[in-house]
């Protein structure tokens, strides 16, 4: 497999150090995979400018949102810069900064556009073709109040209650994750992560196939379903937690995000869903940007330890995991993979006992923490300088190439999930104008976030801007643009 390249051969000192510092023996595929399983779904975007290493937002993943975080790479900047041109930090000319900022701009944005669009496409196709993923029906433990209330005020109140309960779970899981990370309970985190992905890949996949076959009115026998589920699930576990080709890993991450988004969409009541989207964006903002925010703490802790955030819960466009090993400063933080809360698998038919409930909450929080972390890795200049070190990185490209795009952008899986949820709710009306307007606004929000990331170079939350744009455009399209557009379509008037 691709990831087997040069894992053992090219071992710079830092890498071996990092390896030794890990408690559990996660198999080192391309990315260093710490055993931190609970990643907040803070998406961390890191821009690596010249000499900057992307600090891991391992902590960030602790929060249940996906956040985009950019780690301030100033430390690495200095090192790299000194290596490069002996210039002190302060005298760095602005144009070089601009060069570095934008040098990796457009293609990375598009590299994130594609998986986000794919995830949304899977969700929308599933919703349109099957009927079992429509909301209504069962409720789950995280939003216990139903919304069938007589007056609007009652409805709002109960929705708010639902939202706060949900956020309570999310925040609790985030805090637990950070505590575990701080106390170096890597085994627990890793085990938690494996458990959640296990549940997600097998249980949710099984229910997905069942609902598809039920909706399409095509019976599939048990043997086929078990065979298919087992195979897909086993390969998924390999690819995500161990080594595997990058496209397959990306495909699995996208698919899992889509599954989670579908489950969320099914179980979240209508108004609660909108409120949750809004509140989680605010939480994302707080957790990533405030000095005492959990995700920020996670990032800084990971930064100090020079560890990587769990790659299992981060979508990355290239195999960047090795970058941390490559970068000389061992403090390059790595993104801890978010915990995927596979707790989404709520079997509403069962009565949940306390234990199951807690377990599910934990899994869910893990999933919630899954986030994609946009991350630009070590800049090309550094790559050219020390090609040998990048051998380790390029798990997917056997040949060291100067022109190789060693920068990869990472986005927390939680971001994927919430974007897809927003789009799923937008498509529920059946009006394609709304869906397309929300889609464009989500992508533009992502674009803006990446641009801000490139400029500010700190961890940034991926949710707020996109969700804000999405919500504004959703409500305005439904109530204002929609009727206008319908009137125009009716008379075939083209403006």
């Amino acid at each position: 497999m691709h990831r087997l390249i040069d894992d053992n051969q090219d071992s710079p000192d830092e890498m071996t150090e990092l390896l030794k510092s890990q408690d559990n023996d996660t198999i080192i595929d391309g990315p260093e995979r710490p055993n931190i399983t609970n990643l907040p779904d803070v998406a961390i975007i890191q821009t690596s400018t010249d000499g900057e290493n992307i600090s891991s937002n391992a902590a960030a993943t602790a929060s249940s949102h996906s956040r985009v975080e950019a780690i301030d790479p100033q430390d690495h900047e200095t090192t790299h810069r000194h290596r490069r041109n002996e210039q002190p930090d302060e005298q760095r000319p602005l144009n070089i900064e601009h060069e570095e900022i934008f040098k990796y701009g457009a293609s990375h944005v598009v590299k994130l556009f594609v998986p986000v669009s794919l995830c949304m496409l899977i969700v929308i196709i599933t919703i349109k073709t099957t009927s079992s993923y429509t909301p209504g029906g069962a409720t789950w433990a995280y939003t216990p109040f139903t919304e069938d209330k007589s007056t609007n005020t009652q409805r709002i109140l109960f929705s708010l209650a639902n939202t706060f309960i949900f956020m309570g779970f999310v925040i609790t899981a985030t805090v637990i994750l950070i505590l575990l990370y701080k106390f170096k309970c890597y085994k627990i985190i890793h085990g938690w992560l494996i458990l959640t992905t296990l549940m997600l890949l097998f249980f949710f996949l099984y229910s997905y196939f069942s609902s598809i076959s039920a909706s399409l009115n095509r019976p599939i026998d048990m043997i086929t379903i078990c065979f298919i589920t087992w195979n897909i699930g086993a390969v998924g576990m390999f690819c995500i937690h161990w080594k595997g080709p990058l496209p397959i890993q990306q495909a699995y991450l996208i698919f899992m995000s889509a599954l989670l988004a579908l489950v969320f969409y099914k179980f979240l009541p209508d108004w609660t869903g909108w409120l949750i989207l809004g509140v989680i964006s605010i939480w994302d903002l707080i957790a990533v940007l405030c000095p005492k925010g959990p995700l920020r703490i996670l990032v800084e802790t990971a930064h100090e330890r020079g560890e990587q955030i769990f790659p299992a819960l981060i979508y990355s466009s290239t195999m960047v995991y090795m970058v941390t090993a490559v970068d000389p400063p061992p403090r390059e933080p790595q993104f801890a993979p978010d915990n995927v809360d596979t707790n989404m698998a709520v079997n509403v038919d069962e009565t949940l006992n306390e234990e199951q409930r807690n377990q599910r909450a934990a899994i869910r929080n893990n999933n919630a923490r899954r986030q994609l972390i946009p991350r630009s890795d070590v800049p090309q200049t550094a790559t050219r300088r020390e090609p040998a070190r990048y051998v380790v990185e390029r798990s997917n490209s056997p040949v060291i190439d100067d022109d190789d795009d060693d920068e990869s952008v990472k986005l927390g899986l939680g971001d994927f999930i919430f974007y897809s949820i927003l789009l799923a709710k937008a498509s529920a009306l059946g009006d394609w104008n709304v869906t397309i307007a929300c889609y464009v606004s989500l992508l533009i929000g992502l674009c803006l976030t990446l641009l801000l990331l490139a400029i500010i170079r700190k961890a940034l939350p991926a949710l707020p801007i996109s969700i804000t744009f999405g919500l504004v455009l959703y409500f305005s399209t439904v109530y204002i643009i929609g009727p206008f557009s319908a009137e125009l379509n009716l008379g075939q008037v083209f403006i």
Partner: protein
Amino acid sequence: MTIMECAGCTLIAYGVPFSMFVFTIAHHPFRVIISMTSAFFWLLSLLLSSFLWFAVVPLRTQLAFAVPFAVIFQEIFRFLFYRLIKKAEFALQRVQMQELTDKGMVFDRFAVAYASGYGFGLISGTFAIVNVLSDMTGPGTLGIFGHSQDFFIATAFLTLCVILLNTFWGVIFFTSLDKGGIHRFIGPGTVVLTHMLFSCITLVNRTLTPMYTISLIVGYAILLGMIIYTVVLRGFNLNNIRQRIN
């Protein structure tokens, strides 16, 4: 039958733009982003126009009031997008450098103008046709109550016209503003006037048995005119073309 019609109309409306996308935009991430951003700007202009339409309650059925304002808002936002590009040109140059360094090109204004016009057109056409397409797949057909049976196919052709027109309008607009001098007024003026002409002609489609031929012919005639104008503006003349062909 209805799926056939839907597929046919989709391909009519999106065939040429899709090919344009695949061949000229898909492999250039920079152009993808520009198209996406200009689509967003168009959405904002539509939002403003809708606010206006929504606010003036008694005239909601009189689209003749809302349409000129919609056109004006669109052109204003096209201009705003031009200003944004101009301001960000230095930074954008760096962004684009990555894809152009091997070609040794400079900041490609033409590509930006083209991508921006394409984005505008694509989203404009999409909003015009996508709900019609999704209704098309349902049961039933048109023309039962004396309405025209050509509704779908005329919509598809008009959408194609709109998408292409917007692309060329974008190129003309940006190129004229870049050229300066008298072109700063001729170019955008032409764009606004032809846009207004096209949209107001489509108002004719609102009658009970509309003659789609009027709007179709006018639309495609305008398109031809815009193509010629663009070609002239970009500096091609008959000799150039002859040389290129031979």
